[in-house]
């Protein structure tokens, strides 16, 4: 099992959720985050003083998936979140040791 964690542009969230649903993902966790990367920030102005916004708003999604589904999930996110502009985000995949569904006590891939 793996966790696929992706940082994406906020306005792409709905398209990504739809694409994940189409490849068989049944649940995901979403967090609003801020980040700093190659996109850098932008400047704003308040009462005559310019200032830099270094951290840009992004959305972090986390999906727990079985090993055989991992590649498809990564492809689905890449396809749905891409705008070809700088700042589209990144995807990280890491090992998942255990998963438990609290209501039933099922564990492993059955709990996903």
């Amino acid at each position, binding site marked *: 099992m793996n966790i696929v964690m992706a940082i994406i542009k906020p306005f792409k969230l709905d398209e990504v959720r739809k694409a994940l649903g189409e490849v068989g993902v049944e649940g995901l966790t979403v967090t609003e985050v801020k980040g700093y990367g190659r996109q850098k920030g932008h400047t*704003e*102005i*308040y*009462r*005559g*003083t310019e*200032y830099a916004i270094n951290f840009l708003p992004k959305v972090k999604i986390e999906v727990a998936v079985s090993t055989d589904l991992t590649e498809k999930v990564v492809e689905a996110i890449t396809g749905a979140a891409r705008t070809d502009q700088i700042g589209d985000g990144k995807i990280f995949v890491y090992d998942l040791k255990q998963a438990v569904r609290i209501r039933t006590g099922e564990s492993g891939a059955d709990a996903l």
Partner: protein
Amino acid sequence: MSYKIKLIMSVTGAAMLASTPALAQDAAPDAAFVFNTLLFLMGGFLVMFMAAGFAMLEAGLVRSKNVSMQCLKNIGLYSVAGLMFWVCGYSLMYSGVGDNGGWFGTPVPYSWPEAGATNEGDYSVASDWFFQMVFCAATASIVSGTIAERIKLWPFIIFTAILTGIFYPISGSWQWGGGWLSEMGFSDFAGSTIVHSVGGWAALTGAIILGARSGKYTDDGRVVPMPGSSIPLATLGTFILWLGWFGFNGGSQLAFGDNANASDVSRIFVNTNLAAAGGVVVSMILMQVVYKKVDVTMALNGALAGLVSITAEPLAPTPLLAIIIGGIGGVIVVFAVPMLDKFKIDDVVGAIPVHLIAGIWGTLAVPITNSSASFGTQIVGILAYGVFTVVASAILWTILKMTIGIRASEEEEALGLDKAEVGVEAYPEFT
């Protein structure tokens, strides 16, 4: 239709004259008394609501961790001003100023004719007290915005009590109490200097003695913006102040009992509106040209600067001159706000450009349209109010600083005054 009404009125008028001449003679002065009093009461409650305008403007321009405190200070200062103006303020400003050489009145708690009694004079005594009291409160409101987000509650309240009970009434007596400046021919119709620049001088002195909010100016000379928590609230506050200004300037005609006075009050209304509109449009255009972005808070300040600019003489200017006088207020805002930051004077809401600098400009502009005023006397008045208010405020701020302390600790400031002193957060459901 109107002809018919006129006819009926003239007939009844003639009948009254014929049957009861004494009653008819009483009716005319009573009508003027009633309308003058109505002007004071309506002008007064409009200016009273400017307290709400200041509260909303300031609540919107401070950060969310200090919003409760700003609301508390505003309702507190309005109430303290209302009490102090009764305790000694009104009489210090208006009673027997001539007997004291034109420098101050005789301070005693003020009293009105008892219930049911008719009043002598051209208007009700209590309506005048009420109208003057709300002007006094407006002066204190100006101070609270500049020194927001770092001054402790109680020293601010004590300062307000002395400002509204002693400082403002003493300097106010020089002009509106019939004192030495009015003898000299100084002209300030509704208080560009007497109210606005006095509040501005007290605010400036406070800002310098108190120091900037921590983190506002970095060691390497950068200015760190601290954007306000709510632009809609700041906008609402500005509109409320604009509305209140019709009472502020219109009511200062002090009479509404005949055709000429009612016409002048109306003229003041339209000039006041034109000047505010001029202030907004000029500041918007300048922001676009200079900064390429039209910061809404500068447009809000532009409205208020336009209003303050026209306050010294809202009656005499032609419409075009009213727009120009207000528009220059808008210019002042766009250039004075960043200039204060260069001097590291931290004015949270822009009250110093709006009330002090535009107040001075408005007072200087009076002789342009009012031939009975002179530039020399206007400058004497501006300097007199400036020197007195700066010296008196500096002494009081310094005493407060050395005794109970005026500044919240660095930790309290970082935490926010809402948590540190009020115990109530303005927005508790956002964490």
